[in-house]
């Protein structure tokens, strides 16, 4: 190696290296300008009056980059630019349904929202009027009950997995089955709750608490996973510091480990609630629908926002207009609740995580 370095360079000019490093390249402004043009065309296509075919035209403009590159820079660079284009296109395509959902739900749901919409139930309502008060209360009650069941079980399981069972075969199995449990279809959770309650209350049972049980089956694994992740992040040194002060293990967990992980746990639990609050299928099976306000989890059918939305649009009745409007309104309210929970979760983890080095 050293010998090649010492070989005197051929006298073929000042900098043979520099010339070999210099290749023909696209002008630096070219990709940016073309992408900008494509984005503008696409935006005009989506929001402007000229029609959505402009999006396709925009994409073709961007697609000029790899072709131009092939001509100027060669095949390898062109492939690289082509992949960049494809990957960005994939992201843009994904944004489309999100934007479309938000746009349609907001534009069709927002006009429906009114004071009456939030404060009236559907009792004795035919045609226009009425509201989602009963469904809103049902959703809140059932979700709260599900959270009351899931959070303790999920948290204690996470504590077992991290603090007591670490390294044991039982813990490994539980962890694995919790992972598998995250994949239980929501309708199956509903059927499970139904099959369970049929044993006690006979066929045809409908009950709010059954919905809470079904949602718990879906929520517990999510809570376990997120709590486990957070407990894992608590440095072992803190546990040792506490033990060294003569603090029993359970007090160490309650007073040192949990407070340190609190922000993360709250975030995880909030996201878990956000996940189940929009569940429809299990509630359709076990909680059913009613037009009246029912605040008793243990007494008969209970309306919920998702189920209300579903029936309002599938069986709108005659005339269908008002019912479909209510469906959009309920969908918007549900979407807002879910988005607020997601936002809240992020804010909690942003502001309340313990400061200082990890």
């Amino acid at each position: 190696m050293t010998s090649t370095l010492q070989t005197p360079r051929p006298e073929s000019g000042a900098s043979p290296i520099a010339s070999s490093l210099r290749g023909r390249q696209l002008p630096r402004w070219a990709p940016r300008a073309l992408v900008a043009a494509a984005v503008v065309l696409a935006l005009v296509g989506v929001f402007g009056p000229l029609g959505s075919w402009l999006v396709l035209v925009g994409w073709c403009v961007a697609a000029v980059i790899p072709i131009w590159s092939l001509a100027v820079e060669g095949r390898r660079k062109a492939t690289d630019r082509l992949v960049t284009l494809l990957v960005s296109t994939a992201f843009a395509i994904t944004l489309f349904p999100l934007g479309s959902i938000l746009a349609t739900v907001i534009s069709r749901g927002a006009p429906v929202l009114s004071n009456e919409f939030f404060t009236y139930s559907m009792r004795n309502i035919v045609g226009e009027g009425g509201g989602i008060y009963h469904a809103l209360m049902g959703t809140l009650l059932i979700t709260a009950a599900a959270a009351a069941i899931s959070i303790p079980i999920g948290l204690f399981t996470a504590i077992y997995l991290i603090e007591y069972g670490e390294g044991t075969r039982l813990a490994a199995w539980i962890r694995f089955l919790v992972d598998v449990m995250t994949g239980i279809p929501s309708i199956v959770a509903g059927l499970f709750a139904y099959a369970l309650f049929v044993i006690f209350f006979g066929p045809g049972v409908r009950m709010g608490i059954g919905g809470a049980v079904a949602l718990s089956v879906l929520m517990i694994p999510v809570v376990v996973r997120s709590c486990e992740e957070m407990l894992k992040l608590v440095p072992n040194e803190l546990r040792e510091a506490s033990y060294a002060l003569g603090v029993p293990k359970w007090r160490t967990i309650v007073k040192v480990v949990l407070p340190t992980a609190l922000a993360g746990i709250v975030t995880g639990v909030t996201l878990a609630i956000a996940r189940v609050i929009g569940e429809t299928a299990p509630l359709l099976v076990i909680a059913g629908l009613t037009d009246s306000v029912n605040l008793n989890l243990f007494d008969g059918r209970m309306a919920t926002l998702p189920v209300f939305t579903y029936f309002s649009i599938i069986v709108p009745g005659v005339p269908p207009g008002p019912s479909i409007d209510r469906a959009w309104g309920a969908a918007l309210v549900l979407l807002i609740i879910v988005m607020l929970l997601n936002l809240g979760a992020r804010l909690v983890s942003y502001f309340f995580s313990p400061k200082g080095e990890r």
Partner: protein
Amino acid sequence: MTSTQSPERRRTTPTRPGDRIFRGTSLAAALLILATLAGVAVFLTAEGIPGILASPDDVKHGTTFVDYVVPLVFGTLLAAVLALTMAVPLAIGVALFISHYAPRKLAAPLGYVIDLLAAVPSVVYGVWGISFLAPALVPLYRWLEENLGFIPLFAGPASATGRTILTASIVLAVMVLPVITAICREIFLQTPRLHEEAALALGATRWEMARLAIFPYARSGIISASMLGLGRALGETMAVAMVLSASGVVTFNLISSTNPSTIAANIALTFNEATGLTVNALIASGLVLFVITFGVNFAARAIVDRRKDFSGAN
């Protein structure tokens, strides 16, 4: 193994009541989860068996259980596989965009945006699918019928409402996309920096770096992410129930108005009117769905776990 060495000492070390209670509670919670999982299987089986054994005369659908459930399984698999064919390439692209192509500062916010897609309730997807997406796709289906009608998939006649199995699959694809993206993104970000830098140092372009360093590392992760997405797509209920205009046939024709139904959607659509043994048959079909998704998830998780052992991470 180790405790055999000095059992006397281990046993006699006094434990505090607080510790014992706390340990017991947490163990009980963990065992309760196992019991729940077992309970799901046991109760569905107990309530499902009468439905499986019911004679055709006692149930609304008027066939044996096998004849009843096979078309549903077909529809479930067809919709899920179609959804996955669309979602997986797109999800890998999006994950790669977020992890390696987007500006570093934007990566986290863009990730949140995709996560929002996962947060949208399925009933909202249903409402959107039935009243926006399905009508919007009708012209496309007409075009497919006219120009590609010789392919059996697009034989038509094209549905006038757009509520076809293809539309349902597109909605499903959008729903499972964030699930697959999130896992792929994590795995792409975990690619050892040294591998990436080694590839770049050899003069690789960014795409060559992805092929040399990222994909080999992430292969099993992508497979298991796709399987988790598959599990999700198999079990998704409401969006399919609302979007799909089902008639329970077995066909590969994707754009016509007669479509196969799925297990989950069928339960949602018929459960409320069902009585007697028909309910049991529906629960039995739920059990079939549970077994299928359990198998898929089990396999996916097993792949993830095995990968953990090999990569030596953590």
